[in-house]
């Protein structure tokens, strides 16, 4: 069975809602991978001056933005409200206040339109994101999911069948980017800023540690962040671009090495990237090189599919409806919701 098997009687048109962090997003899909519309309203400007997402500001912005974003997603899909056949929303993990806005809205719409509601795990939606752009990806695949809140290496055998290969033991990869950028006053979000600066820097200028490089599949980025802080504290005449490039190189080295090694060891047909850090230019380039060297197919979702969006939520919701049916209307939001791993 592939992830794309599609029973005819199930709902086809799914509205997805994503409000787990600082993007207010809504999208409509038809079936497992046909994206009819995808609207994202980013709050990044609202949070930039704080150097990170401020939960209270995020929740308030979601409340203001969600209704127009949902309306726009339905209109852009060329539909009217009564043609939506199910409503999916991210129920976790994420910021509790933000999640509640999306989950409550989705349940209300499902109730008002008399269609099923389905709760979606944000991480599962990310794992599935590659399949929206490449529905014929052969399973199993190894997915490297790297974002501001998560760093996971997962073997995906089918939709809903995941084996945990590795995860971070402290900071997420994207968090390391944000924290290094904040420490060096480079701005927020840290990932794109460091990516841009690194293009003009020498990645070999400073040899930062590659934590846990040859030590299993787990990751650790807290010590690398501290190494950058120590270096900056104890050196004068720093070239910021060189620090950015050297730091990024250390992160990418570890991610690419472990991901490609996992793909080989677990006999994966392909290697996919997911999550906001998957938008990093160096990571994308180096991961593809590693896939070519290993003779497996590599898939990089477009940058807009890597970062938080509702198309992946709607599509994962469609899949969950096939597997489990609708979620009860008393389903809550869970800020620490985990992926359902098999062992």
């Amino acid at each position, binding site marked *: 069975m592939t992830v794309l098997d599609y029973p005819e009687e199930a709902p086809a048109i799914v509205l997805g809602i994503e409000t787990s962090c600082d993007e207010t997003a809504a999208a409509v899909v038809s079936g497992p991978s046909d994206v009819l519309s995808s609207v994202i309203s980013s709050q990044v400007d609202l949070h930039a001056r704080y150097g990170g997402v401020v939960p209270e500001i995020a929740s308030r912005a979601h409340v203001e933005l969600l209704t127009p974003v949902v309306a726009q997603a339905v209109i852009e899909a060329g539909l009217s409200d009564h043609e939506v056949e199910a409503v999916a929303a991210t129920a976790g993990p994420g910021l509790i206040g933000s999640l509640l806005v999306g989950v409550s809205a989705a349940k209300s719409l499902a109730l008002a339109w008399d269609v099923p509601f389905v709760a979606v795990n944000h991480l599962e939606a990310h794992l599935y994101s590659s399949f929206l752009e490449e529905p014929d990806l052969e399973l199993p695949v190894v997915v490297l999911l790297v974002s501001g809140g998560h760093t996971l290496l997962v073997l995906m055998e089918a939709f809903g069948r995941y084996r945990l290969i590795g*995860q971070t033991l402290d900071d997420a990869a994207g968090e390391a980017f944000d924290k290094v950028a904040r*420490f060096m006053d480079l701005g927020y979000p840290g990932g794109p800023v460091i990516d841009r600066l690194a293009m003009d820097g020498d990645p070999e200028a400073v040899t930062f540690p590659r934590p846990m490089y040859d030590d299993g599949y787990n990751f650790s980025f807290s010590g690398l*962040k501290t*190494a950058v802080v120590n270096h900056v504290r*104890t050196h004068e005449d720093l070239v910021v671009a060189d620090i950015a490039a050297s730091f990024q190189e250390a992160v990418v080295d570890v991610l690419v090495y472990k991901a490609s090694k996992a793909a080989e060891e677990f006999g994966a047909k392909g290697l996919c990237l997911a999550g906001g850090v998957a938008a990093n230019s160096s990571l994308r380039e180096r991961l593809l090189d590693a896939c070519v060297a290993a003779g497996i197919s590599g898939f990089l979702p477009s940058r807009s599919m890597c970062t938080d969006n509702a198309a992946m939520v709607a599509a994962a919701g469609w899949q969950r409806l096939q597997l489990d049916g609708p979620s009860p209307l008393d389903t809550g939001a869970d800020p620490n919701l985990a992926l359902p791993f098999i062992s």
Partner: protein
Amino acid sequence: MIRARSRSPEDTRKLAACLAELAQPGDLLLLVGDLGAGKTTFTQGFAAGLDIHEPVTSPTFTLAREYHGRLLLHHLDVFRLEQVSEVLDLGLPELLDSDGVTLIEWGDAIRQALPNDYLEVALTFVDGPINSPDERVVVLSPVGPRWQARSDALAAAIRQWIGEPPC
């Protein structure tokens, strides 16, 4: 105020694990220190001292995580919280009422929202010789009756880290 010195992240973990031996239900600890000072490292050691064996990861993204060991551990990161009301939104009073131990990173910023009964743990880089990037000064300040009553026990628990560093 108890001043101690850690020579490495591993040292910080051990010190924190020794402190965890003294933890009681309802305790509150505030972790103060710059980026990279070792707040997460301290928390990992503290969790190990509470017999928590799952990975203790940064709470920065979701603001709060909980772990089950000898005692329940609530691990909060409030760096981005701007207002006292947001701390209340996290359910802090309920956490403190529970049978668990609450450990707050960057707690300095929200001190006014907290009950006057906590142990402050300040981690600072050691200035001076640039060849000691792993060393940290750890200052414990018991505030309020709960922790002041345990001052002597605190000093005894981390005795091996107190005193002048060898030159």
